[in-house]
Structures are given as C-alpha cells and as structure tokens.
C-alpha cells in the first residue's frame, strides 16, 4: 500500500540532497552571522541606506517638535556618564594656551571671539531635557547656556551656511550639523549643568547641547563654531556612526 520511496522524495529532491542543500544554506547563514560585521560587499548598501535615511530624517524634522521630560522622571545628577576621546579629562590650560575663547567664524557677517563672560552676558536659557545616547540610555539634565539662534543672529550667519561644525580641544573631536538642527529652539551653547558651571567631566568651559541630536553629536570642550556651505563629517561620523544622529 505505501511505497517507501514516497517518504523519501519530495518535489524531486531526495532526502540526502535536501539535507545537503539545507545544511549548506544553514552553515552559510551561520558563518555570515559569526563573521560579526557581515560581508564587506554590504558596505555600499549600508551607506546607500544611510543616505536614504538621512533624507527621511531631514524631511521629518520640525522646529516645533520639542523634547519634553516625562512627568516623574528623576534627574541623572552625578549618574550622567562622562565621555571624551583624549586619554585624560581635557582641561583648558590657561598658562599654555591663554584665556579660553569661543571662535565663531565661517560664513558669517561678523566673525567673533567670545570669552566665557561674553557668553554669559548673552541671552540665557535653562532647558531641562533628555539626553539620548547612541548606546540606548537616556538621562535627564538641565543645561544652561546661549540659544544657538542668538549666536547665529549675533554673528550674522549668511544664507548659504547650510552646515555648522562644532570643534573642540578634546584631541580632534568635532561634529558637523545641518543648520536646521542647530537652529532648533532647544539647541544651546551650554556653560551650565544642573545650576552649576559646567565641569571638565562634561565639557567645560562650554559645549553644544541639544536633545534633538544623539549625545555624540553634541561636541564638548568647544573651541570653534564654523558656519559652512557643506557638511564636514565628524569624529564619530567618520568612524562609522551615522552623520545625522538626530532623534
């Protein structure tokens, strides 16, 4: 009644062939997965996807989208991690480099050098906002500083300044932004954290801070803000992290 072959052949493939093919496919998939970062040929496709995502993200971006801290959320306080790329905490050495000043230049009408006192005399805001780290954690902190829009107004940013580069004295750390993100109402050049002057652990004397960008886009230990016609990459952006890094 039953022919044993029937149980062995399916769709013209016999059991051994089937196991061989299936085994091959599975080990190939397994090997691909174990070669941790995936096939090199995929690099191009991944970069293509990043460019397309950049378009989607910039199209989604609105100045009216404001970060709000959830009711009941606790401040991170001293639980806010400290990150820098130098071997030790970067501290501005006045005896070697003179008094710290922030240079604002590039495509602007009036390039300027602003001391910390100058910055503190400019219009000031304090924003209690989320910090979105690329690693997946968030932290609530209050950042005090000059709204970036005020700074742009002060130096007279030119219409063809489509990008801004935030540069630092933390080795060669810098990150460039699209001008729309820089002009977001919650983007500040911050010199205060949680009601105190910024400490070297978190980017003293001043850093850029905005809840609309991932942490690594918010350059600490600022030295220069340069308005640019083209994007200028960044420390982590040049090392594989997406350039846009907006949330």
């Amino acid at each position, binding site marked *: 009644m039953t022919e044993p072959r029937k149980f062995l052949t399916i769709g013209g493939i016999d059991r051994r062939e089937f196991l061989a093919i299936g085994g091959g496919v599975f080990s190939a998939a397994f090997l691909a997965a174990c070669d941790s970062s*995936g096939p090199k040929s995929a690099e191009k496709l991944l970069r293509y996807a*990043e460019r397309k995502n950049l378009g989607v993200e910039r199209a989604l971006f609105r100045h009216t989208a404001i970060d709000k801290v959830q009711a009941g959320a606790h401040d991170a306080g001293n639980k806010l991690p400290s990150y820098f790329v130098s071997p030790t905490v970067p501290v501005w050495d006045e005896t070697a480099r003179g008094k710290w000043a922030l240079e604002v230049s590039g495509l602007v009408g009036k390039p300027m050098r602003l001391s910390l006192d100058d910055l503190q005399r400019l219009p000031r805001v304090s924003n209690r906002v989320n910090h979105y780290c690329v690693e997946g954690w968030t932290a609530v902190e209050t950042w005090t500083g000059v709204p970036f829009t005020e700074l742009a107004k002060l130096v007279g940013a030119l219409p063809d300044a489509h990008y801004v580069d935030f540069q630092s004295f933390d080795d060669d750390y810098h990150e460039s932004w699209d001008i729309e993100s820089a002009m977001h109402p919650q983007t500040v050049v911050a010199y205060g954290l949680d009601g105190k002057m910024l400490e070297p652990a978190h980017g003293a004397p001043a850093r850029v801070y905005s809840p609309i960008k991932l942490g690594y886009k918010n350059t600490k230990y600022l030295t220069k803000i340069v308005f640019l016609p083209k994007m200028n990459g960044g420390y982590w952006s040049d090392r594989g992290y997406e350039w846009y890094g907006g*949330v």
Partner: protein
Amino acid sequence: MAKKRHHWIVRVTHWVNVVAIIIMVGSGLQIFNAYPAFARKGELFCCYPFEHKPVPAWLTFGGWLAGARNWHFAMMWVLVVNGLIYLAFVYLHGEWRDLVPRKGDIRDSWQMLKFYTFRRKDHPHQGKHNALQKATYFTLPFAGLLAVLTGIAIWKPVQLSWLTALFGGYVWARYWHFIAMVVIVVLSVVHVFMVFAVDPYSLPSMITGNYDEKLSPEARNARPFYHLFPRRARPTPPPEAT
C-alpha cells in the same frame, strides 16, 4: 499527490523574512549590549530581571555598535516592505481565511496540546494549519507591527514624540521593542523546531510550493519526533486524501 500549497509570493516573503529577522535580531542585540538595561540614568527599572547583563556575543551581529546600527537601520526597510507585501497578498488573495481565529480554535488548540502530550491518540482534524499554527501565524504579524512601531518610537523620540508617548515614553518604548523581539524569536524558534520535529515535509513545500497531503502530520498522526518512538498499531486508519 503533491498539491500547490504556498504561492510564490508567500515563499519569497517567507525567506526574505528569515534573513531580515535574523539580521534585525542580531544587530538589535548588539545595539542592546551597548547599554543592556532599560533604566534611565539615576533610576531603576522595575520589569527586567537582567539589567546590565549583556546578551551572549554569539547572538549579536554587526561587530560593534555603529556597524549594528547601520545594519539595523538598513534592514528595517526590508522587513517593513517585505511585511507589507506579505500582508497585502494574504489579504487580496484570500489566504487570510486560513489564519484568522475562528470559533472553536481554543478548543482545537487544547486538543492539539492533548495530542502532543499523549493524552489523545489521534491527531485532531485540521485544515491547512492546526489551531496552534494558526494562532502563531496570526500573532506574528502583530508582534512585527509592535516591533516596527516601537522601533520608530525609539528612533525618533523627539520628532515623533506622540508615538513614543503612546508606548509610555522612551524607556518603555525601548522595553516594548525588546519584548516584541522576544515574542518573535520565541514563536520563530518553536516554529522551526516543529518543522523539523513534526512536519519536515513543510520545509521543501516552503521552497517548491508543493505539499503532499498524504504526508501531513494529520495523515501520519505525527507528534514531535514521532519517528523516534516505537511503532504501534494505529487506533484508526488515516482518512484517505481526496
């Protein structure tokens, strides 16, 4: 006689899904390992027992955080487009009728469990899928939808803050994203186990599309690893395939 069981669109989207889900889960776990916890800094999180314990590296894909993020944000489009093609096809072509829950499904699921645990001798009668399969294949698209929506919520917590708020804020949206992944992984692992243990003929059928009903688990009265058990006389002869 082998009959057509899976339309080519179902077969192609199934295998694209296999690749997309493996890469999404692997890269997602690599991203998770950068901060293998849910708590906001300075807080504790109630509902995850393994806070700050990374998942084993062999489960991860992408090499490092940036690599994994690049894979995750590229593959997400494949997953979404593939899922939409599948759902549109299942809706337009009528296959959804084999998957939607119907009266009696709970009773039938119970009977399947009884059969699998040797408390019932003969395989319950079924259509294309048994009741447990139906429940699985019906649940998976919803788990996928949850994964996609929570994924968008933690990708754009400021620009799309209304969506993030819908899931209880960033921390909770990230948690639901993780839970959706766990549901998808558990159902997929059980699915693959049952394919090999109960219905190995369904594997070639997902490649060629053909399936011989005479070899179905119902016709063979198959429990997991049925072929490893000693053979006994069958209580009732299998119904003839028509």
